[in-house]
């Protein structure tokens, strides 16, 4: 473990960054460090954590807006929203179990990685879509803002989106303002027993192509034995006001019946199921295994899955209508090469999401960019972090 800096506020955080910049000392950037075993290991003697910057700073339920400091634990935000029957539409996952981390993820960490759950399939369903504004400290220690606290804003370049998903390499997020949504009054799931993954994706596509507002569409290759589903099962979630659900479930069932036997999962069982999908729990990745996330066109997913099963006997979980492929397997370069090849063949993308340091240091953890884009990336990095001290090497060598 490296030296840990935990500044108590934005000013001291900016000061710490300026001091590190003056000394040309790289900093590893984290919140609670939940996903320290993700992407490439950062070579830095010191770690700067945002965990000292905690707390909700603004919550206007009637405007569906919340601001919180970057180090605020996600459960604290969820609890505040639950009081007003609201939610973060992206359904951000909690990967602390997947990473064996003791502390829950922080808001800053989630936004810096742009991590979204099953509701990602809806329009505007990514966490980055719901970031209305940010405050951040650049690599030379300047405090900047982008966006604001209003829902519609096209003023200037959208640095919110640039920073969301930049994994702390362009700036240290200090405060984030999010768009909220009302929490649906009720939800239920339909489970379709399907012959294989290709049939499963077809069932999900049929559901997502229906007008009934499917808000979750996942595929469990091993089913859900606790619900009596022992083979591949396609899961579709409906959420809305309670009185609307019986009719919609009936109509959706009619569409899905052509794809396999349909059963209904209601109440708490449905909620538990989607929390598990959200957190990639059904993947049951063993502690020594590597975990990959691939994003492809849903109809390309079955071929990706087959390739990974053949290459290294991957354990799989599909979400986002099939387009998000979770894979677990041996933490070997050969397995990683198979993931890269499958993503390329499907014209999609991949992330080495969890692995021992040795593998993460040895391979590209995200796809290489074309040379012209990589050159722009180097210049953008220099614009935001001129001395290259923020999370060096986190995304690319």
């Amino acid at each position, binding site marked *: 473990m490296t030296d840990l800096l935990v500044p108590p506020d934005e000013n001291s955080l900016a000061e710490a960054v300026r001091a590190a910049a003056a000394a040309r000392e790289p900093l590893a950037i984290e919140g609670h460090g939940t996903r320290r075993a993700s992407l490439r290991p950062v070579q830095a003697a010191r770690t700067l954590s945002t965990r000292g910057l905690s707390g909700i700073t603004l919550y206007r*339920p*009637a*405007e*569906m807006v919340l601001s919180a400091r970057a180090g605020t634990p996600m459960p604290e935000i969820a609890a505040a929203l639950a009081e007003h*029957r609201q939610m973060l539409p992206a359904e951000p996952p909690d990967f602390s179990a997947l990473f064996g981390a003791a502390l829950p993820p922080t808001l800053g960490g989630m936004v810096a990685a*742009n991590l979204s759950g099953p509701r*990602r399939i809806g*329009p*505007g369903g*990514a966490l*980055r879509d719901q970031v209305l504004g940010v405050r951040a400290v650049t690599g030379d220690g*300047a*405090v*900047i*803002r982008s966006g*604001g*606290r*209003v829902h*519609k*804003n*096209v*003023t*200037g*370049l*959208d*640095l919110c*989106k*640039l920073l*969301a*998903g*930049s994994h702390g390499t*362009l700036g240290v997020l200090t405060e984030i303002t999010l768009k909220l949504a*009302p*929490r649906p009054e009720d939800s239920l799931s339909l489970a379709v027993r399907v012959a294989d993954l290709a049939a499963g994706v077809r069932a999900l*596509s049929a559901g*997502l*192509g229906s*007008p009934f507002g499917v808000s979750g569409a996942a595929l469990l290759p091993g089913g859900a034995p606790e619900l009596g589903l022992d083979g591949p099962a396609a899961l579709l979630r409906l959420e809305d*006001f309670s009185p*609307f659900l019986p*009719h919609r479930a009936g109509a959706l069932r009619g569409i899905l019946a052509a794809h396999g036997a349909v059963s209904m999962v209601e109440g708490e069982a449905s909620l538990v199921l989607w929390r598990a999908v959200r957190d990639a729990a059904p993947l049951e990745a063993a502690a020594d295994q590597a975990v990959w996330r691939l*994003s*492809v*066109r849903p*109809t390309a997913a079955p071929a990706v899955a087959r390739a990974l099963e053949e290459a290294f006997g991957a354990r799989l979980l599909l979400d986002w*209508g099939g387009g*998000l492929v979770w894979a677990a397997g041996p933490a070997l370069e050969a397995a990683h090469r198979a993931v890269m090849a499958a993503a390329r063949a499907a*014209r999609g*993308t*991949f992330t080495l999401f969890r692995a021992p340091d040795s593998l993460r240091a040895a391979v590209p953890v*995200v796809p290489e*960019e*074309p040379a*012209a*884009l990589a050159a*722009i990336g180097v*210049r953008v990095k*220099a*614009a935001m972090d001129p001395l290259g001290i923020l999370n060096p090497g986190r*995304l690319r060598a």
Partner: protein
Amino acid sequence: MIELPSPNPAVLARRAEIVEALRKLVPDTPLGHGVIGDEIRLKAYETDGLSAYRQPPLAVVLPTGTAQVAAVLRYCHENGIRVVPRGAGTSLSGGALPLADAVVIGLMRMNRILEIDTDNRLAVVEAGVTNIGITQAVAEEGFFYAPDPSSQLACMIGGNVMMNSGGAHCLKYGVTANNLLGVTFVTIEGEVIEIGGGHLDAAGYDWLGLITGSEGQLGLVTEVTVRILRAAEGARAMLAAFRSNEVAGQAVDAIIGSGIIPVALEFMDRPAIHACEAFAHAGYPLDAEAMLIIEVEGNAEEQDALLGKLREICARFDPISLRVAETAEESLAIWKGRKGAFGAVGRISPDYLCMDGTIPTGELPHVLRRIGEMSDSYGLQVANIFHAGDGNLHPLIMFDANDPESFRKAEAFGADILKLCVEVGGCLTGEHGVGVEKRDLMGVQFTREELDRQRAIKSAFDPAWLLNPAKVFPLDGLPAAARAAA
């Protein structure tokens, strides 16, 4: 008036040679000339939706594909010639306003639908396809493309990407950025880069998110992969009229607080109601101070249930009238006035400026009161139309373009409104973009440090500042490269 940079005399002097070189890159087609260089035809490109500003360009090129766009950009880059991208020219902020020494790259010949994939709920189209053209191409399958700017019959998806366009229905379905999967991006050096594709989310930096809404500052987009959505079973609207802006604002809060997200929630003030009613005869209540149009989606029973709840909520605020459409035709009648709002205001005033700030929704009564006071002191009428659910305010300031003093006052009035939007916690532009119109107000919303950081990112893509110059960023404080280009 907003200052535009003086043209580069060296580029102007080479005009004939440049036009000739461009003709080799973009040959004529059976549809017409690939390059427009004569003064009469160039007049057609001298302005956009911000028609108070006019300037014919050096030349216009109308490429038919990505390779031609790349070739033109490469040529302009090598020769230090400025470039102004243009879709349909509907920008209300002057985003497509030419410069005398700039080449306009028009996208209208690039209007093919390349792929429709309903299984994966996406379509790949060229940048010159109109917004409505996408929905028309997928409607038979029951799908639609969600963002619906008022100009959707004309405006092109490439322009929508560049401005991150919104529309009346983005409360539920989001703006352009929320409905994109990928773009074919061409840099000023003429490099063609595929960003995103058919999948969700990037593994590295979110270039797609940065490019969306970048107003042509970073590069051009020639092909776009959009998400298409299955249309709801049906939609129906209701109208609620109130005695004051305050009360209508409270009703909006109560609606949002109820857990219902309508697909549209539009607010009109008294002058807007009167202008629209005189124009469209939609049966709007002329004794009301404020009016809401609320639209919900679902099957017939769901619409009934939602409209019933909304009626109950509105009834708590002492409404003057509540009218729930029973049929699709009655819904259309309710929308008729609102959809014709721009034409309606155009009928009572020779000219108007359409402003576009966003405010926290709770600030609406306060902001409308202040706008009323400004209207009195400037002696100019204003009608307010407001996407109430998301806080996007469109004051229409009426003036007479034949009277320079009236135009000057209208611009000053508009600037004061936008400063007020920032003051109450909002922003300068919700969906029209900064363009030239709001360029000089950027310092109201951003610090010098923040603007410098945005300019540095622009420089990372466009080191010589050749792309859509004199837009978005105030002319003072430009980096040396940009000043040299000016």
